[in-house]
C-alpha cells in the first residue's frame, strides 16, 4: 500500500536544499510530513524493508542514494526483501 506522504518526502528530497536541511536535522524536515508513527520510525532507522512496500522503487533508490548509502549496501538490503514478482522461466 502506497503512502502518499512518504513518496512526497522522497520526491521532495531530490531538491539539494531540502536534502541539505534533512542531513542537518531529519526530525525538523519529517515534522512537515504527516507520516504514521511506524513509517516515521522506519525513516529514522533507515529501515529499508519497512519502507519499500510503501514507496515507489525509483524514489526509494533516489532517497537512499541521496542519504549516502552506497550501491553495494543498498543492493544487499534489497536482495534480503521477499521477491514480489514471479520470474518467467521462458519468454514467449
Amino acid at each position, binding site marked *: 500500500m502506497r503512502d502518499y506522504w512518504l513518496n*512526497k518526502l522522497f520526491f521532495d528530497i531530490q531538491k539539494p536544499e531540502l536534502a541539505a536541511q534533512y542531513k542537518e536535522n531529519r526530525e525538523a524536515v519529517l515534522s512537515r510530513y504527516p507520516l504514521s508513527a511506524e513509517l516515521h520510525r522506519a525513516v529514522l532507522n533507515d529501515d529499508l524493508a519497512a519502507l519499500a512496500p510503501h514507496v515507489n*522503487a*525509483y524514489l526509494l*533508490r533516489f532517497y537512499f542514494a541521496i542519504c549516502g548509502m552506497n550501491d553495494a549496501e543498498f543492493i544487499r538490503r*534489497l536482495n534480503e526483501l521477499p*521477491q*514480489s*514478482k514471479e520470474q518467467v522461466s521462458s*519468454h*514467449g
Partner: protein
Amino acid sequence: MAKLAGVFAASHGPMIAREWNSLSAPTRAAVEQGFGRVGDRLRAARPDVLVIVSPDHWVNFFLNNFPAFCVGIGAEHDGPPEPFLRRFFNHPVLPGHAGLGRHVLDTALNRDFDPSMSHRLTLDHGFCLPLWRMGLDPIPPIVPIVVNEVDDPMPTMRRCLAFGSLLKDAIESYPEDLRVAVLATGGLSHFIGEPGMGQIDEAFDRTCISLFEKGDPAAIAATLERDVRHTGNGGHEVRNWVVAHAAAGARGFELIGYHPLEEIYVGCAFAEWRQPG
C-alpha cells in the same frame, strides 16, 4: 509536408553518466560504440526536429498529477536537473518545436486520444543522456513525449502502439517542409530500487528484440503486456520502443547493438527502424 526521416531507439541508464569516469574499459567501449552508431545514423538522417519518447523519472510529475502521456508543446524546455549529468551535458535550456508539438497534440485530440500537455518540461537523463553520448551538435528542436513507465497504472502496450501510429500520422501531416526523426529511449531490462537490482534479464531483452524484428503489433502487445510484469521495473520503458515501432509503421527494425551490462544495471540496446526508399 514534413517527412519521417528516421526512427531510432537507445537505452539511457543514469549510471553511464554517474560512473562515466570509473567505468571498466569494456563497458565504456560498448556504451561508446552503441551510442556512437545510433548518433551517426541520426546525424545522417539530418533531422530538423527530434521527437524524443522517454519516461519522466520523478522530475515533472508526482502522484498528485501523473499523466499516462504528455506532449511537450513549448518553444523551450529545461535541461537535466541531475548534477551527475549536468557536469557533462551543460544545457540549462533546450530548444523545443512548439509547432510540431501542438500538431501532435491536436492530432491526438482529433483521434479521441487525450494526452496531457506541457509548455515547458524539464528533460531528465531519459531525454538528455542519449543526446550527450551521441554528441549531437547542434541539438535540433525537440518535441518531448513523456510516457508513464515509473508507477502503476501505466498505459497498455496496445495504447502505446496507437500513440505511435498517431505520431507517425501527425509528423506526415505537418504542413512545414521538415525532416523529423523519432528517438525512443530507455530499456531494455533493468531493476531499480527492487530485488534484483544490478541483474539483467537477458531472456526478456531477447524476447523484445525478436518481437520487434518479427514486427507483428498484436504479438508485441500481447507478449510484452504479459512479460513486462515479470521482469525488472525498468523493463516498462520498452513502451517507448513500442511507440517507436508503430511510428515506423511496424516494420524495418534493425538491432544496432545489445550489451547486457550489469556494471550500469541495464540491458543496453540500440536500434533503428529502417524505412524503405
